[in-house]
């Protein structure tokens, strides 16, 4: 039964109770009213009538007496009439009592009174007859002997009746009273019973309503306290409250579900925060670190004191950031936190994304920072989130990848150079470095000769490195060479400092050794290759051997011509072993000239090589390259004129540099000449005077002037640039030649003695052993630049074609 039904029932019961009490009261009242009516209409009036009866009896007696004693006959007649009225009244009274006799006693008394009344009235009538007849004495006697006696009897009966009637009236009133009292008690009792019943019913209903609500309230409080959402309120009935409890339990179920979900999510987030290898923190309005942060943050900052710490000092202390940057960062944080989200957009570009932080253990960490706002429903930034990644290792890896990339590039550079050439390059470079090391070590003070020597050696390394396309090394050597150039110039701010110079030199040495290591270990090209132990071993072209053997086998032993031919072939092959043509030796140098020429606004020179059948032993290759790189580049730079000048002098636009190799008087001679403007003797003289190498009054022959260029420190070049490689002194070239027990000289090829410019050849003499002569192997080669790569622009300038 539902609560509604129960309350309705309670109301119905209450109404029923009210009606019951009312009905009962009305019923009782009705009964009582009949009683009262009986008493008031019968008992009381008849009782009162008995009192009248007494007075009526006396009235009759008094009237009778008055009549008897009346002397006047008229008046006596009138009294007789009056007596008749009184007698009628009395008779009427007795009849009334007869009609209203309540019981046999009363009835008996009334009948007795009636009987008596007849006799009484008879006696009175007799008496009155005597009187009216004038017989007063008789009348008197009759009166006293009959009337008075009968009157006394009647009087007695009427008194008795009156007493009886009074007793009856009192008894009736008493019954009436007791009835009323019983009614009141009955109504009270019924009311009391109903009140008790309704109370019991109400209490039961109350408890049925209140108890489950109290239980629900208690459970709610317990759940709120314990956060134990698994609890439920027991459902005992399916009334409205039962249904409310079911709904309440469902709600708790939902909360439990959501709380589980929330718990799971919180747990997930906590797990992430605990395990992700990334630092995450949020910054509160007070610029402090919020208690929820990722555990890895402790690893990154190497501290456990993170919660509530000042984020500026936690993250940015001991970093490379300056005071101004720090204050700006703080201002940005202040402008964002607690403000509308757009402020973050305004200012996020000022938030640093990478810092270098010095840690307590002395190490330096590189930290990558990314910032984001945490906003609430009102789009206000409540906290700033900062994700921190330790990218130290990543950067190191990137650096390593860079170094690997560099190594690969270096490998590419090395592979473009043959093994023996590379080996020779490394050895010569280390030799130059060693020389420089000694020079630096031995001199505590600046000395221009020493600087010149340092420069020359470094310049040679650079020239060779560039020739072989070893770009990384070239760059480093160029840097060192530049500092030597600066030392050469009188600059007060640059002083001779052994330490610095040594450091620079070590950088070059390490780079050279790095190249050597890559060659040796990464490429497995240890040693000098086929030139190793040239005195003992030769590397031979397999094809040559195959052809030679084939030729020998083909030769018939009886045929002298065939045998001679085979002999010649074998001899030739054997002599050619371990040699190369001069053009092969100098190929790298030739290839480097076009670029230089173009830079100087000249056409790439044609190189005319006449080797007269001589080939060069591989071991001489390095020296020849060093020497002729300088000579060829100097010829291109100083000797050959610009296109305009050449065309004006009726010369071909492109210049020609010629190389002739021959053996003369037991010496190998290599002559280098060009069709340029000749040797600038006047300029050389002036420069030598400027450099105080000669005095103005000195009388020098053209040859003597020409030889000035071999003096250390004489260089007509204005400056050294990375690309051109100009400016090395001829003293360096003479040094190379002398090391091989050779000589170098200038020989004029015209007869314009004393002229400012004179045509000349440079003659390099070297031991004959450096070459082999092979009959029929003469070679004339014109090394020309690929002209298709050039084009003549509209203004007659010659430029490289656009790629």
């Amino acid at each position, binding site marked *: 039964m539902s609560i509604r039904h129960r309350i309705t029932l309670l109301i119905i019961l209450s109404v029923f109770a009210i009606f019951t009490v009312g009905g009962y009261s009305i019923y009782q009242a009705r009964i009582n009213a009949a009683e009262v009516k009986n008493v008031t209409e019968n008992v009381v009036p008849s009782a009162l009538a008995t009192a009248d009866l007494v007075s009526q009896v006396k009235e009759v007696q008094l009237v009778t007496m008055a009549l008897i004693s009346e002397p006047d006959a008229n008046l006596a007649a009138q009294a007789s009439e009056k007596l008749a009225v009184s007698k009628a009244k009395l008779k009427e009274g007795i009849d009334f009592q007869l009609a209203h006799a309540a019981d046999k006693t009363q009835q008996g008394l009334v009948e007795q009174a009636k009987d008596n009344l007849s006799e009484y009235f008879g006696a009175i009538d007799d008496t009155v007859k005597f009187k009216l007849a004038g017989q007063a004495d008789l009348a008197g006697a009759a009166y006293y002997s009959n009337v008075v006696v009968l009157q006394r009897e009647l009087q007695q009966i009427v008194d008795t009746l009156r007493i009886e009637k009074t007793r009856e009236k009192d008894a009736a009133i008493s019954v009436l009273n007791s009835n009323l009292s019983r009614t009141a008690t009955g109504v009270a009792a019924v009311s009391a019973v109903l009140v008790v019943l309704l109370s019991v019913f109400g209490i039961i209903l109350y408890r049925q309503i209140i108890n489950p609500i109290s239980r629900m309230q208690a459970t709610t409080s317990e759940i709120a306290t314990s956060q134990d959402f698994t609890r439920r309120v027991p459902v005992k009935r399916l009334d409205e409250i039962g249904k409310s409890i079911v709904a309440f339990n469902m709600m708790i179920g939902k909360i439990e579900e959501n709380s589980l979900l929330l718990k799971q999510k919180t747990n997930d987030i906590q797990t992430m925060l605990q395990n992700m290898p990334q630092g995450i923190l949020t910054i509160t309005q007070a610029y402090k670190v919020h208690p929820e942060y990722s555990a890895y943050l402790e690893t990154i900052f190497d501290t456990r004191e993170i919660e509530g710490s000042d984020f500026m000092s936690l993250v940015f202390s001991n970093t490379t950031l300056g005071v101004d940057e720090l204050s700006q960062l703080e*201002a940005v944080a202040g*402008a964002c936190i607690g403000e509308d989200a757009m402020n973050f957009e*305004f200012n996020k570009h000022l938030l640093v994304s990478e810092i270098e932080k010095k840690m307590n253990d002395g190490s330096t960490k590189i930290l990558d920072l990314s910032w984001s706002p945490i906003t609430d429903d009102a789009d206000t930034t409540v906290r700033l989130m900062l994700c921190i990644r330790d990218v130290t290792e990543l950067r190191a890896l990137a650096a390593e990848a860079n170094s690997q990339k560099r190594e690969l590039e270096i490998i590419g550079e090395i592979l473009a150079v043959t093994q023996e050439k590379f080996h020779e390059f490394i050895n010569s470079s280390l030799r130059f470095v060693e020389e420089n090391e000694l020079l630096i070590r031995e001199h505590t003070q600046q000395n221009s000769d020493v600087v010149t020597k340092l420069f020359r050696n470094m310049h040679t390394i650079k020239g060779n490195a560039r020739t072989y396309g070893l770009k990384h090394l070239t760059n480093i050597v160029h840097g060192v060479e530049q500092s030597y150039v600066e030392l050469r110039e009188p600059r007060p701010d640059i002083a001779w400092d052994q330490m610095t110079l040594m450091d620079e030199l070590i950088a070059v040495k390490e780079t050279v050794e790095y190249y050597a290591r890559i060659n040796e270990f990464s490429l497995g090209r240890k040693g000098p290759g086929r030139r190793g132990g040239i005195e003992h071993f030769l590397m031979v072209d397999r094809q040559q051997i195959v052809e030679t053997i084939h030729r020998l086998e083909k030769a018939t032993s009886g045929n002298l011509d065939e045998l001679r031919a085979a002999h010649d072939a074998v001899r030739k092959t054997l002599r050619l072993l371990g040699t190369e043509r001069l053009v092969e030796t100098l190929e790298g140098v030739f290839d480097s000239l076009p670029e230089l020429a173009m830079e100087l606004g000249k056409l790439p020179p044609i190189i005319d090589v006449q080797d007269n059948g001589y080939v060069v032993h591989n071991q001489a290759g390095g020296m020849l390259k060093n020497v002729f790189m300088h000579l060829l580049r100097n010829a291109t730079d100083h000797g050959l004129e610009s296109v305009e000048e050449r065309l004006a002098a009726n010369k071909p636009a492109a210049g020609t540099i010629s190389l002739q190799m021959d053996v003369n008087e037991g010496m190998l001679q290599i002559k280098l000449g060009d069709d340029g403007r000749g040797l600038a003797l006047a300029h050389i003289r002036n420069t030598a005077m400027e450099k105080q190498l000669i005095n103005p009054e000195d009388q020098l022959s053209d040859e003597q002037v020409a030889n000035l260029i071999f003096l250390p420190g004489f260089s007509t070049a204005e400056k050294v640039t990375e690309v051109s490689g100009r400016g090395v002194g001829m003293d360096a070239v003479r040094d190379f030649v002398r090391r091989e027990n050779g000589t170098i000289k200038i020989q004029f090829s015209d007869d314009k003695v004393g002229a400012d410019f004179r045509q000349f050849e440079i003659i390099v003499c070297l031991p004959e052993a450096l070459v082999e002569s092979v009959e029929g192997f003469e070679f004339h080669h014109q090394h020309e630049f690929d002209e298709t790569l050039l084009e003549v622009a509209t203004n007659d300038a010659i430029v490289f074609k656009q790629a």
Partner: protein
Amino acid sequence: MAKILVVDDSSTVRDEVAGFLKKSGLDVATAVDGKDGLSKIKGDPGIKLVLSDINMPNMDGLTMVEKIRGELGNSTVNIIMLTTESSPSMKERGKASGIKGWIVKPFKGDAVLESIKKLAA
């Protein structure tokens, strides 16, 4: 079109900010200090957004803002402060005066243009 008032005592900053906004097609007025700014706003109800420096002679930016809200009873004009620092007291005063935002100098127009256009609309 709604107008933007740029208030800064430094002509460099003023020219830079106002120049950028003008170039972006916005209608811009300038004032050299808080007092000037206050009178400009009083005289031109078309001004919908104020970009103001804080430290200025005669009247500083925050005082100007308080007067805009108080003396002028102008509660609708949007206000953004240009600042180099941030302190709790500054922020409190800003909040009380209904300041919309803080732009930390140096001013970078691209970062703020969209929001400024919205606030000036």
